[in-house]
């Protein structure tokens, strides 16, 4: 199964991961148009930074995911085959219990006004997740973990 790993030694706080995460989750095909139309929000990855230290944080897709266990609505789930922790916005009621229990702070209230949460989905339709693909410095990598998933 795939996991995204941040490497803080190579992160320069450029936040292109945030930009391309937002962009890849829009229907827009042009980045500048997406920006002008106000669609570049709701990024599912966030750079945590302080002084010279920065690195990107997104859902870790935990094996024993606290959000899946705690979800009041059955909206958080875990795919057996891929090990992905999935979020079903149609079931989500916006109770924020997942935000309360996520040890990485990787679940956020959606910024599109839908009243649900959003988090990394590992870009299931892409060979390499958008944040990793567009990191100019190799500060995000995808690894394949064996033995789980």
């Amino acid at each position, binding site marked *: 199964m*795939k*996991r995204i*790993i*941040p*490497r*803080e030694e*190579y992160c320069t706080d450029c936040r292109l991961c945030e930009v391309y995460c937002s962009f890849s989750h829009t229907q827009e095909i042009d980045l500048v148009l997406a920006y002008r139309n106000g669609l570049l929000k709701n990024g599912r990855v*966030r750079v*945590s*930074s*302080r002084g010279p*230290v*920065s*690195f990107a*944080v997104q859902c*870790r897709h935990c094996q024993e995911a*606290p959000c899946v*266990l*705690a979800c*009041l*609505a*059955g909206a958080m789930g875990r795919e057996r085959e891929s090990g992905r922790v999935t979020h079903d916005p149609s*079931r989500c*009621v*916006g*109770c*924020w*219990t*997942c*935000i*309360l*229990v*996520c*040890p*990485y*702070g990787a*679940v*956020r*209230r959606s910024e599109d006004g839908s009243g649900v949460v959003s988090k990394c989905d590992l870009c299931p339709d892409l*060979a*390499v*997740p958008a944040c*990793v*693909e*567009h*990191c*100019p*410095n*190799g500060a*995000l*990598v*995808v*690894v*394949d*973990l*064996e033995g789980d998933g």
Partner: protein
Amino acid sequence: MGHYRYAIIGNSAAAIHACEAIREVDPNGSVAVFSEERYRCYSRPLISYLLAGKIGAAGMYLRRPDFYRFLEIDFFPGGKVISVDPAKKALKLSSGRIVYWDRLLLSTGFEPFIPSVEGLSSTKYFTFTNWDDAKKLMRVARGPFRALVMGAGLIGMKAAEALHARGGRVVVVEKAERILPAALDPVASSMVAERCRAEGLDLITGCTVVQVRQDSGTGGVAVLEDGSEVEFDLLVVAAGVKPRSELAVEAGIPCLGGAVRVDLHQRTAVPDVFAAGDVSAALDKVIGGPQVNALWPIAALQGRFAGLNMAGRVCSYPGGIPMNSVEFFGLPVLSAGLVNPPDGRYRVLSRHYEDGSYRRLVLDGDRLVGMMVVGAVEGAGIFTSLIREGVSVRGFARSLTEADFGYAHMSRSLRKRRFEAELLRGKQVLGFRKERI
């Protein structure tokens, strides 16, 4: 007659997670789930969303319709268990049917606590803990109506908010000096109260209902401590909850303060009988001893550990901490651990932010033991995990109140431990931009 490897009494958070955990370990052992309710597993906390009209009935269910069949579990809706016999390893249903089991899980949850108030027993009142309660309220709470809610705890306040959303004029009476006294600190409590009052809820604190009188139908009058009277069309009693431990008590299973006492494997003192969820008193990491925390995430976790242990994978419950996530009229409040410290040995950091948010952190020496955030709740789970894992915050305690507090504020070794353990286990790097691994 029937015999099951595993029998589970109850069908909510603890029971469902126990079922799933059992199947992880034991794909074949027979499992029976007995529920006195008619519904397949649904989410009790969502009844306030249902009552408020935010979700429909279909949104109440936690799992897909074929959940039991998929896991090959025999589900008995309406299967009310009236007694348990640990010596014979049997249970009796209200129909008279006897079912034998090898391992039993008591996950019977809680029931509302009804205070003794003059006239209450002869008055039609509502409680608000399960789907049927919500349905009864939905039948009555129509058109213009006046509702009186006794108790401003989480259940009372969520009921009040939902009844308000249905167009009711709602009065809440709370005996403590402020609303949500257990879950929130005084600052957050007043922030929520202010929001609720601005939306039109009438909150009366520091006052109790001393008498109620029925007029007609579900309507009546409540007399308050100060002599004032509140007329209502419907009355909701939300004065607290208590564990439904009557089956355990009658079976001679040791209890503690009304809750079933369990060890770290969720075992009761009686062999092969386990308990989990709101009926059980399991390890609370904040107080360091057994405690009932009638909270959904804790019930789910206990259920999971009960299931694993029942099926033979011996593992210890890591302990729970009280935690809550609630939102009133769009104002979210998240809390975990010890929010209101009992004495002066704790250090409290609190801060208001420009966007109206508020954060409160409670420290015991170098350990974070409590947190509460109002408004901007993103990242609150990092605090929860620091509390749960007892991580030392030495070196970054002062950063905890920074608006963008995150892993970058922690020591390098601490975040490396969390983020790169996976990298070390990684076998194959699949994708990255530059050759830098």
